[in-house]
């Protein structure tokens, strides 16, 4: 962890200024690769089980177009505002970071709220984890994504408290940036869920 000279070709952004920052960002990309595998496995399982409904409700009966469209819009928009927050971060504009990040978190919470009420509604309709293989796959896939979003909200909030206390240092910037990466990643995963679970489920 020695040299702190910045290698050639490194972007001139605060999050890349320290050796540690560069390593951690790279490491996080690698971690995301593992996350891709994790979600791929869940998707594959879901698709294998998708029409094993065992006489229970099917996706077509359960999914509400309006609800999952709103969920999708919320998450997509939050990804956009998260990107804006990182841009503000690079400009050194702490206030901008807070505005856009809080907007991001708010939309994230909105998404979670909708997802939870969606799940609750399903359970009331008698569609639970225990009903069929299809629903086991559904709840675990979508729920894993939801758990990730929850973790993201908690994590980014905590990073924001650190930014509030310490300002935009290379270290806090690195944490913000990684939080942002994570958020975008979850957005991408959602797009797959949107297509492979909800849209496909309607057909």
């Amino acid at each position, binding site marked *: 962890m020695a040299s702190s000279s910045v290698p050639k070709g490194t972007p001139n952004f605060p999050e890349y200024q320290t050796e540690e920052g560069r390593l951690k960002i790279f490491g996080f990309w690698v971690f995301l690769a593992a996350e891709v595998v994790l979600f*791929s496995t869940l998707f*594959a399982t879901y698709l294998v089980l998708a*029409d094993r409904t065992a*006489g229970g409700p099917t996706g077509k009966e359960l999914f509400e177009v309006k609800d999952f469209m709103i969920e999708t819009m919320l998450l997509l928009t939050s990804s956009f505002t998260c990107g804006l927050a990182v841009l503000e971060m690079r400009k050194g504009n702490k206030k901008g970071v807070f505005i856009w990040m809080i907007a991001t978190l708010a939309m994230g919470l909105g998404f979670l709220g909708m997802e939870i009420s969606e799940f609750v509604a399903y359970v009331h309709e008698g569609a639970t984890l225990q009903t069929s293989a299809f629903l086991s796959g559904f709840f675990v896939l979508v729920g894993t994504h939801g758990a990730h979003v929850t973790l993201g909200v908690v994590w980014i909030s905590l990073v924001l408290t650190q930014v509030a206390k310490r300002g935009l240092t290379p270290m806090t910037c690195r944490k913000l940036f990684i939080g942002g990466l994570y958020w975008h990643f979850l957005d991408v995963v959602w797009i797959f869920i949107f297509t*492979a679970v909800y849209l496909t489920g309607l057909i």
Partner: protein
Amino acid sequence: MLPLRNGAWKWLAVAGMMMAILSGCEPVKMGVLNPKGPVAQKQYDLIIWSVVLMSVILIVVFVLFVVILVRFRASKLSKDYEPPDVEGNTFLEIVWTAIPVLIVVALAVPTVTSTFDLEKSPSPNKKPITIEATSAQWKWIFKYPEQGIETVNYLKIPANVPVRFKLSSHDAMNSFWIPELGGQEYTMADMPMFLWLEADKPGKFIGRGNNFSGRDFAKMEFTVEAKKQSDFDSWVDHVKKTAPKQSEKEYKALLKPGTVDLKTYSSYPKSAEVKEPNHGGMEHGGMDMDHSKMKHEDMEGMEDMPGMDHDKN
């Protein structure tokens, strides 16, 4: 202390032993190396061919290994011998890539042809008999749908007649194996599968459950007797006349975990027949689930889920 100098010879001895064993000199007169039917014979031929091919590699490497160790031991070399500074040799490396490729091809070709052959009846021009073999914790239940009888923990088949086993399980997965007659196939609760076997001549063999299925798995041995067709027929008649009928209740009791003795029934209840699985809902029209459809939709990482296209026969 064991003098290391003799190490090379020890290796040679071990190598010799392995060769002897792998090339089948050792008298192993039972099981896989004692085929008693066309399926087992086909597999036996393939096994012997693979042993021959593998022996070539083993011999080449063992000889090189021993020679190099003997020749280039530091204690055998003069004090000022300096190993040459070589980095490799492209020609040699191509050679020892190409040779394994050839060997693999030599094994792959008969492998593929046998794989396809084993899906078919070993004697297509003879009329086969179907037997349902079901594993349950920890016993084997054999139903003869054409004869309407059932046996538990022993199996009788007509010799010289291809047998089409319909394999299934009541609970844990198991594997149905009669080494002298041919290789095994799993028995699964959610997917009946088929296995062709045939005995050349009348004889007695041992069959067994070969996939761990819980506490008394070790006890899941059964005897197999191949009888002349006429003897088989009279055995069936005898069973039909003398053995009790099996009630629904008795069948249920039989399925409960535990071990049981040999049993014979002149009938079995309708509910005991091996059913096709139905995992979908009503709206999917029950039986005609098309698993293969899903294969193309899968995500990266796992292009397909082998084990799904049953009933290919």
